[in-house]
């Protein structure tokens, strides 16, 4: 037993030493997850993607006599933008001008104020504002229209609040009894706002802090990298040594076959865990995610992930006769696993048949558990189901792997 451990340790030591001498590989260890996070992170538009977006304003109400509300509307729009810097505003004479600018790509959208906007509001007639968007870029157009609508609606609310407040102050017929002569006091405004907007909606999560896409993705990416390192790294490393002939050197030494596998697994897991740690650090310090759970439990989960994939890795090793075959089999398994296990996209968003496939992938459970631990601060009890599935899968695969490996090695 002691000898087995020593042999395992020396083989792992050799692999890691070899790896540390490969400067390119060491650099890639950091660069690859960085790339993955940057790319996947930016594909999903967030409010950060809208910054200094060029938007034109077409003011048809420019020459009307009553411009009070138009001016107020535009002022509020500008001052809001000064705080957020979401847009860069320009003026367009007509709707057609704005359309042309969108077609040319000079602006991403336009806000159109109709003629008589101000007087309509003054006379309590409902009017409208048009948002012109660029259909060739649906993502930006969607973000733009939702953000602009939000701003415009809140301006609308402000206007109606003021009007209601005025009504409250003037119209005693609606409010029997006492009323305040100064409609501008806070209590009247508050009351008016309550009439305009009877309730507000608040989203509250189980843990503090804001969520972003990285918060969703980082735990998944960590789990995937760690588990894949064993599943992919093991067959790759062994078939590579088989190909260059060095495996014979170990096979002809009086050591137990299993220590070759164990040594390689140890080295690959160490590499995977290191990369997992790098992703975790990148996620916290560069992409600003907050960790709510226990780091120790997270590492325990990584180890469990490694364990559950060892068997699969050995089975693949046994059947891949050379490096090229190994790589092809790997890719065939890696891709569905990567995209169906909820690493980058929530499983709930997938069509039903994909959700069923996802249920059979061990990575799904590992990713789920890791996310619960890191983001929601789950305890071992909370992720009991995930942990049991992973343990079970690991044991079954090892039971298959041991005879398969023995058979493959004796060919």
């Amino acid at each position: 037993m002691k000898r087995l451990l020593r042999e395992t340790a020396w083989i792992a030591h050799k692999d890691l030493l070899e790896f540390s001498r490969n400067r390119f590989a060491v650099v890639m260890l950091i660069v690859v997850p960085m790339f993955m996070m940057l790319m996947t992170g930016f594909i999903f538009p967030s409010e950060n993607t809208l910054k200094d977006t060029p938007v034109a304003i077409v003011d048809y109400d420019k020459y009307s006599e009553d411009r009070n509300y138009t001016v107020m509307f535009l002022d509020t729009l500008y001052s809001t933008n000064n705080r957020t810097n979401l847009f860069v505003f320009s003026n367009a004479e007509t709707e057609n001008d704005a359309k042309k600018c969108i077609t040319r790509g000079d602006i991403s959208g336009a806000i159109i104020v109709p003629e008589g906007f101000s007087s309509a509001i003054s006379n309590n007639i409902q009017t409208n504002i048009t948002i012109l968007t660029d259909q060739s870029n649906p993502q930006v157009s969607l973000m733009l229209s939702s953000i602009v609508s939000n701003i415009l609606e809140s301006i609308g609310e402000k206007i109606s609040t003021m009007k209601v407040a005025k009504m409250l102050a003037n119209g005693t017929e609606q409010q029997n009894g006492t009323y305040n002569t100064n409609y501008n006091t806070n209590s009247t405004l508050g009351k008016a706002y309550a009439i305009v907007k009877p309730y507000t909606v608040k989203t509250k999560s189980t843990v503090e802090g804001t969520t972003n896409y990285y918060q969703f993705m980082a735990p998944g990416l960590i789990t995937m990298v760690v588990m894949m390192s064993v599943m992919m790294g093991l067959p790759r490393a062994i078939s590579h040594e088989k190909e260059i002939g060095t495996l014979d050197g170990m096979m002809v030494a009086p050591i137990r076959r299993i220590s070759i596998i164990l040594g390689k697994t140890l080295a690959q897991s160490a590499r995977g865990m290191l990369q997992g740690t790098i992703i975790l650090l990148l996620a916290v310090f560069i992409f600003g995610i907050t960790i709510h759970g226990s780091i120790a439990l997270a590492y325990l989960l990584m180890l469990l992930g490694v364990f559950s994939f060892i068997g699969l890795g050995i089975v693949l090793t046994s059947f891949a006769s050379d490096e090229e075959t190994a790589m092809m089999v790997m890719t065939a398994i890696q891709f569905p696993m990567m995209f169906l296990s909820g690493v980058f996209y929530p499983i709930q968003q997938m069509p039903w048949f994909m959700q069923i496939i996802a249920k059979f992938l061990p990575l799904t459970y590992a990713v789920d558990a890791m996310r619960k631990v890191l983001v929601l601060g789950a305890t071992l009890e909370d992720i009991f189901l995930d942990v049991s599935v992973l343990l079970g899968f690991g044991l079954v695969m090892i039971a298959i792997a041991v005879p398969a490996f023995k058979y493959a090695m004796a060919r």
Partner: protein
Amino acid sequence: MENAIETFSLTKKFKELKAVDEISLSVKKGELFGFLGPNGAGKSTTIRMLCTLLTPTSGSAKVAGFDIVREPEKVREHIGLVSEKMIMYDRLTAYENLRLFGKLYGLEPSRLNDKIDELLALVNMEKWRDTQIGKFSTGMKQRINVIRALLHEPDIVFLDEPTLGLDPHATKEVREFVQKLNTRGTTVVITTHIMYEADMLCHRIGIIDKGKIVALDTSKNLKKMISGEDVSIFEIELKDRKEEIINELKSTKGISSVITSLENPNVIKVHANGENSFDIIIDAIRKQKGKIVTMKDLEPTLEDVFIKLTGRELRDSVSDKVKAHRPHQAPKRIR
């Protein structure tokens, strides 16, 4: 224990192909034994079975007194393998490579370091101890590759084509080292497709072709097979090679083989029996109006033995090496 290695109808089949076909032989303790044969003849497969890297399909073998199937661990303790592909990691230094394998053989740290220094000195590589193998020339690499197999002082050392791909100087070095190793008492089994190498190094040679041992004896006795049978070998340079001449020679009674030189198509090598073989050959060439530039009577070589036994030249049978490495892989279907 008299014999270091004994095989009993050792056979290895890869699907339908019989790579090694019922080989029975024994190698004495302290002997320098050679397997000579063209690529793909089954030399490597035999060695890999003896090294416990492959399980025989049938038959059995004893190496250092242990059965290769039932007691592979015991066999491994007593053997060293210098494989055709170098067993080394380019990114590790010479010392790190040797240390790894020393550890795998369970050598004590202090003894291991002494052993490494001793072996490095033996091949004059002390000053390269801490240089990464990847920076070495092929000859330097092979020196490390050879001593790597000697760390645990094995009783039997297998060398599979140890001079393949080496320059003449390095080849000479390796051959000398193999001899030195053998004189120190180690049993050595070497495979080669170079007759000269087998001839100069080995005490006994097993000529192997298509998985079968076709002859096994000392170089001297093997050559006697030819001279004893009254076979003469002539190297003839023709003025102008014509297929009719070759065909005429081939169909002449008393001429057993006609082989054309690879370097010069006008030069042919003819094996002939009988006392009047000289006249027979000249008559046959004259009959087809051929002109002879030179004609030499040659001493038989192992090459000639191989030709006599298989009807082919050793070099003729050079097949591509990839196939020889992995004969168990079926050729890929081309669409």
